[in-house]
């Protein structure tokens, strides 16, 4: 078993919101990653990086219960998801907001209808859904595009609608799979600020990206998938304006030279 999670468990702290224990997964006989272990503390912010095809999106999918068939244990909100009956999974998913690079919006619904989708599913009245979704769209700066269909919005606007949908039901965990991949730099900064503000109010964020500029601009601990293993880069944590959390100062297989090389390469 990789040491990261074990070490964290030993320290006294609040239970992990999400934890992987020796999780291996692959679509073929060759695993994408092997014996991955980590835990996310409530209120933390982590980047997830790695080369294309390294398994970032798959790891995110495993986190939001979008795929099964893995080995090991995944615990979400303290519950082992593999042993849970199927009809209990939606309840867990309602506590997670997911943001994708390619938006995943419903084309025939307006922005406000897309954002209110999680609320409709939870059985809120049309009025509550509308008011809350409109409020969220205001927050993401789309108060004037409530009734626009996704196809009429720009990439950055669509991504903000997706963020609105992800946060409308006050999730405890936000999983973002390269949300800035299809937008320009200025929009990426604007989106990142939204995630920062969500994190500031206590939402746990996992943000998959390969945008090194963002990592420099908004420093947070970084999970790296490399050679089928998950590493935690902690140097960035030192640049945090707040003290790092316990899980942010531990590391597992960690190549300091490579880390330094990376820092040098990106200035």
């Amino acid at each position, binding site marked *: 078993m990789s040491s990261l999670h074990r070490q964290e468990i030993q320290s006294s702290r609040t239970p992990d919101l999400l934890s992987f224990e020796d999780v291996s997964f692959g679509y073929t006989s060759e695993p994408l990653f092997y014996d991955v272990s980590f835990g996310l503390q409530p209120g933390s912010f982590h980047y997830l990086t790695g080369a294309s095809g390294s398994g970032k999106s798959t790891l995110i999918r495993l986190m*939001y*219960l*979008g*795929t*099964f*068939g893995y080995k090991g244990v995944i615990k979400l909100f303290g519950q082992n998801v593999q042993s849970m009956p*199927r*009809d209990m999974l*939606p*309840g*867990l*998913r*309602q506590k997670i907001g*997911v943001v994708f690079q390619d938006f*995943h*919006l*419903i084309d*025939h*619904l307006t922005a406000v*209808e897309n954002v209110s*989708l*999680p609320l*409709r*599913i*939870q059985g809120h009245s*049309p*009025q509550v*859904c*509308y*008011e809350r979704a*409109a409020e969220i769209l*205001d927050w993401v700066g789309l*108060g004037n595009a*409530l*009734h626009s269909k996704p196809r009429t919005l720009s990439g950055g606007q669509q991504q903000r609608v997706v963020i609105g*949908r992800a946060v409308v039901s006050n999730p405890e965990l936000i999983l973002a799979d390269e949300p800035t991949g299809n937008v320009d730099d200025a929009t990426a900064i604007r989106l990142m600020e939204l995630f920062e503000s969500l994190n500031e109010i206590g939402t746990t964020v996992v943000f998959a990206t390969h945008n090194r500029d963002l990592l420099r601009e908004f420093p947070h601990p970084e999970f790296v998938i490399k050679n089928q293993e998950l590493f935690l880069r902690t140097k960035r944590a030192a640049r945090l304006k707040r003290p790092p959390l316990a899980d942010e100062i531990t590391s597992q297989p960690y190549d300091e030279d490579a880390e330094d090389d990376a820092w040098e390469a990106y200035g």
Partner: protein
Amino acid sequence: MTHPLPPNSLEHPADLPFEGDAHSQTLVRIVALMVFLVSSFLCFSFLSSDLITQWEQGAASGFTVELAPSEGATGGAQVRDMSAQWKALEILGKVKGVTKTEVISKSALSGITGLFGEVSTRNIQEAQPVFIDVQVSDMSEIDLRVLDQVFQRHVPGATIHPEREFHENMKQLLSIATVVTFLLTSLVLGIAFALAVFSAHSGLVIHKKIIEILHLVGAQDVYIANQFQQHALRLGLRGGLYGAALSLGTLVFFYIQLPGSTAATQALFSFQSLGPIVGAPLVITALMVLAARLTVMRELSRQP
């Protein structure tokens, strides 16, 4: 910033855009056709059963004796005919089990033949056969073959029409037709079920991306199945309405075609006819809703 509620904000939008599916309109037409077929089959079945019951009661209680008219229209021929009629009535009066004999009047006879369009071409005064309607308490007590021999001996030219035999044949025929119509009805209902299953499968494939999003934001399978159910309900009711209208139009067509107010025209608008027209759309819609729910729940339960 405050946002006024739009006028339609009291209703949730449909998450799955079934109305845009190319096959939805076709399905409505197919459902309409199925409703028309099922209601027609059931109408026929119920009316046939009713007819059989009526015939059962009528055929069980009698037979008809036909007396052929004598040649020529002279007074002598008429006397011979009258004599034959009295003789026939006398013979029938002696038969054990006969409760009533009645000579069918010429006007009643012309009414019956009129149904077949003969009244305008046939002179009512022309020599016609005489028909005697015979009512009996129990047909099993009467041997029609012996009675026929007696008639041939005393009233030559008399013929016995054993209605029961004809009715039995008709009854068998209608019974077979009824079974066939029930089989066809079952077949159509089975097709309706299969069609709804097929439609649900197609919907799951067409809207796979949206279903994935719904799952992603925490939708239970039953939430998605409800949307499929509602779609099946709308399709069933729309198709059912068209099919029922078509069936009703057919009834009106037959009503206009049939002359006057007869038992047949009254039967067209009885419960036996209108019941299936109302019931068939409801049954087919219920089947479609059930099929959609079962299919979607089963398919989604196989997904992660």
